[in-house]
């Protein structure tokens, strides 16, 4: 897992306490709103996301930048791909 710090997201979405498959549905919904190169931050405590979000990025040609941990949840950073 890639760990990152001080990433400046363009959009943040908070889905703490939500479970599968909300992390993927929100991700898809939010990414549609972004321009290529923009960064999405997703806050979630759902540990299944550790596998699913990087996988989703690979499948959809978006760049998974990494995660940042807080005591209560993860912050995922995804950069929208160019296609």
């Amino acid at each position: 897992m890639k760990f990152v710090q001080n990433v400046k997201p363009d959009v943040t979405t908070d889905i703490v306490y939500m479970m599968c498959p909300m992390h993927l549905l929100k991700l898809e919904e939010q990414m549609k709103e972004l321009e290529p190169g923009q960064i999405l931050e997703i806050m979630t405590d759902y540990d299944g996301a550790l596998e699913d979000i990087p996988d989703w990025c690979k499948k959809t040609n978006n760049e998974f930048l990494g995660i940042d941990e807080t005591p209560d949840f993860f912050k995922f950073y995804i950069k929208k791909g160019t296609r």
Partner: protein
Amino acid sequence: MKKYYVDHVATNPLHPDVLKAMMPYFTEEFGNPLSVYEYGMKAKAAIESAREQVAGLVNAKPAEIIFTASGAEANNFALRGIALARQNEGKHLLVSRMEHHSVLNAARFLEKSGFTVTYLPVDKQGFVAPETVKKMITKETTLISVTHASSEVGTIEPIQEIVAIAKERNISVHTDAVATTGNIPVDMPDLGVDVMSMAAHQFYGPKGAGALVVKQGTRIVPLIYGGIQESGRRAGTENVPAIVGMGKAAELAKAELQERMAYLRPLRDKIIDAMANVERVYLTGDRNNRLPAHASFCAEYIEGEAMLLLLAAKGIFSASGSACSSKALKASPVLLSMGIPSGLAQGSIVFSLGMGNTPEDIDYIAAEFPAVIKRLREISPYSQGWGDKEEGGSCTATK
């Protein structure tokens, strides 16, 4: 265009007699069952009558029925309610990998709250092996949750054998009987479980009505606190029309169960036999020990959603995997747990039949399905094989 609805695990149409029974409770009999005057007494009597009807369907005592708003609520209530009620005895749960998300995510919630959950593996037909259950029990185990039948693959689980193991060790057993109640005989004392979930819309009743059947003497922590409804175990003014509808649907299901099964089983077998002739389409779940109206398959080199869209264009309305998989580009966890490779699991399709379907409907589906498969394979990047992806074909082949 004629419509062919073959997604009865998603929901069923309301039985006309059920609607008729419900109607007065939307209009003139609108009372709150807790009110002490006539309106309230009539609503209360209607609920108690429905309680008897629902209890009758599963051979439970009326007092054991707790009405909920859905099967998902009943599942959440069972997992949290029993785990919390017994937490001083232990904080370990066994949950099968075949479960609906309302069980799995409730288990996840408990894990986050300090419980330990072991997920029971299944074999290629989706059966939980009682021997595995025995091995995975610890001194801390207080609850085992295994679905009566998965709505994704239709396999009926050996609940009684699991209960026998659990009882020797004073472990409570929950079964999610949402897919089975009203569709096959479900006798709660015979199954031996302590708690069991059901949903009215799975047997021609209304949405918004479900129940958790809690064996007498079982302690359970409420999911919703408030008033004294449902003997203080589920607060909130009752959804009287829906409960009345659930009661009527239960009464009809009990009376017509054998007739419905006898009608649906040959239709199911007809569809399974027809699919056996379609190249690289495999049956998922057990061939015989499955729900009487349930036929599920995986088609190689094809994406489930694409199948659904092309079938829908021909008036055929079916399903592919769970909401999780179909809405989130993710292979179904149930199919993966059965050892079906993720590529193949993407091509999952479920035809679930109902009393509105006819043998001619099956002929139509059997005639149209191969053309859909052929067209999708022509455009599939994997039509010549998975390449560097996983190999397919580990599930039960229909041929």
